[in-house]
């Protein structure tokens, strides 16, 4: 059974159809890159999979491990193993990062019927992962993402990914706003999480990110559909030819 099956997905936002029948199949262990110009529906796809309010699914279905994902609340999806790394991680003043991490992890475990992490185990795990991502302990005491740089916010997303151990990671424009060094640290963190049990969907504008996170498959989206799929070489090809060629195809 595929990990994720998106079948003929049609989505509207405020009376405007954004996705016009999108198909995508992702198996465990695979890394899929989704590329495409602004407005092609890449972020909409990631939001609909994660369960963000404000999108109306007018047709098609999304199955996750064979279950109907669209009928689940966002927190249920997270507990089942869906993780969206946000393009713009939000700042939450007054909620300490550590409190947030522990509350979220234990909420997911509780939803799965698992026991809560003990405090020492939790702290040990957070410290290990934070160290590997060059996240200072000091940052974990601050409000969630408050005063974090762009790179720090993205690393904090990777930290959560490592902590929650999801089976599907969706990285929405992870490279936006990052310089090369920050990008490399974040990408190294993501690569460390590659596993035969885990799949990733890497949404990006540019080929650059795919030098660091090398995909198995590349899909090109245009005007709400996947218009071309191929191997990692497709990304290189796009870099030279651009997206304009797909305008007519859509």
């Amino acid at each position: 059974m595929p990990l994720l099956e998106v079948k003929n997905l049609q989505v509207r936002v405020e009376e405007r159809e954004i996705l016009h029948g999108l198909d995508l199949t992702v198996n465990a262990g695979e890394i899929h890159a989704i590329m495409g110009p602004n407005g092609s529906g890449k972020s909409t796809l990631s939001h609909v999979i994660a369960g963000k309010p404000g999108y109306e699914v007018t047709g098609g279905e999304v199955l996750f491990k064979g279950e109907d994902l669209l009928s689940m609340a966002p927190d249920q999806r997270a507990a089942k193993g869906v993780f969206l790394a946000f393009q713009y991680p939000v700042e939450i003043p007054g909620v300490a990062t550590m409190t947030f991490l522990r509350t979220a992890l234990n909420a997911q475990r509780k939803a799965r019927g698992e026991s809560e992490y003990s405090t020492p185990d939790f702290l040990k795990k957070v410290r290990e992962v934070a160290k590997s991502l060059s996240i200072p302990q000091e940052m974990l005491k601050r409000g969630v993402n408050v005063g974090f740089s762009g790179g720090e916010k993205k690393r904090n997303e990777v930290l959560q990914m490592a902590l929650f151990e999801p089976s599907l990671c969706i990285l929405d424009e992870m490279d936006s706003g990052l310089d090369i060094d920050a990008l490399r640290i974040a990408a190294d963190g993501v690569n460390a999480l590659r596993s035969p049990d885990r799949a990733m969907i890497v949404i990006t504008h540019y080929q650059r990110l795919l030098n660091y996170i090398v995909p198995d498959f590349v899909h090109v989206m245009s005007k709400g559909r996947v218009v071309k799929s191929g191997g990692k070489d497709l990304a290189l090809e796009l870099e030279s030819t651009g997206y304009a060629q797909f305008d007519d195809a859509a």
Partner: protein
Amino acid sequence: MNVAVAKTGTERRLSDVFALARGRLPGDGRVAEVRQAAIEVYERLGLPHRRVEEWKYTDLRALMREVLPLAPLPDAAVLLRAREALASIAMAGAQKLVLVDGAVVPELSDLGASAPDVTIRTLREILDDAANAARADLLLTETSDAMVSLNAAMATDGVVISIADGAHVAAPIQIVHIAVASGASAFTRSHVRVGNGARATLVENFVAAGGARGYQAHDAVILSVGDDVVLEHVRLMADAPDAVNITSDAITIGARSKLNMFNMTGGGAVSRFQGVIKMAGEGSELSVNGVNLLRGTQHGDTTLVVDHAVPHCTSREIFRAVLDDRARSVFQGRIIVRPHAQKTDGKMMTRALLLSDQAEADNKPELEIFADDVTCGHGATSGALDETLLFYLRARGLPEKDAQALLIQAFIGEAIEPIGNDDLREFATSVAQRWLEVRA
């Protein structure tokens, strides 16, 4: 010749209440004269209503309707119920001063166990002490507020605390008001004098004994803070769901002192905490923070006047309201800077979180600045929980109510965190948590 004045039923009732109470009110001679003058001021004004500017959002004629008769003096059965209520809020290590239905109860209080630098007497004993030439001063008020005048006329008891110069009082002084009688009023009035160089923590709780319903708590606190004082003053109002609580504080702060105040309003049907705080000595710092947690049809009002009468003082007000259902929260904050009070730094920020479309927040900040070299500012916001933040938390696995609770705690945290005493800060946090749990 008597001029006939049309009175509402409410006002007629009040005259009866005062007449009936007269035999219960301590103090004769000059004290009785002061009471009579106060009740005349009240009778002229009547219950505050929406055409009185300071009360425009809290129309007591509509919300309270009438002043209830005094509660009977507590008997043994009442004290038993009060003792149970006390157990849930008594702070470990605090010096407790307990008033039940408006009467100081020595057997529930630590009157005798005072620190050597702290003198505690009851209002009743001072007012009844004919040899004390200044006793009537305890009922004098400077304002023309109807409810302050009513309190002066009707006050049955209270605590009169004096903290000596230089005293460092480690144990918090906890004044606990317990309502036991249903459908009755308690009128209390306390005086606290904090001597020069003293340090202390003052806590006030308002609670209902199990089964106490529909009562009215009318309280006044006159707090005089000397020079070089460090004082923390925390008020926690947790009245019965259909109770009324009207409290008026009059505070004067000397030079180079620090007063850190916190007020939490929850519980009652109608609550008003009004305070006039005068910065009377240079170089002092005032912090007044507050949280209103209201649901159902509760109405909670915090009205503060910070009067910068001298130069070089700082005042900060952080106020947060969380409103569910059809609850209504009022914050009125006035900062006055007198003509010579240069280098005043006064700021207030009030924010309301509306969890329901039918909740209402009224914010009225006012600045009256008569000096030209000052820094003053105010801000007011009201709105719903941020959907973007909620989705982020839910996408990380938090169920909707948990995500909301976390954001609400963060929202009020800014007002609670400045509480210096760890136990009190934790207590205020736990009150908020319980409020959120009821919601979930």
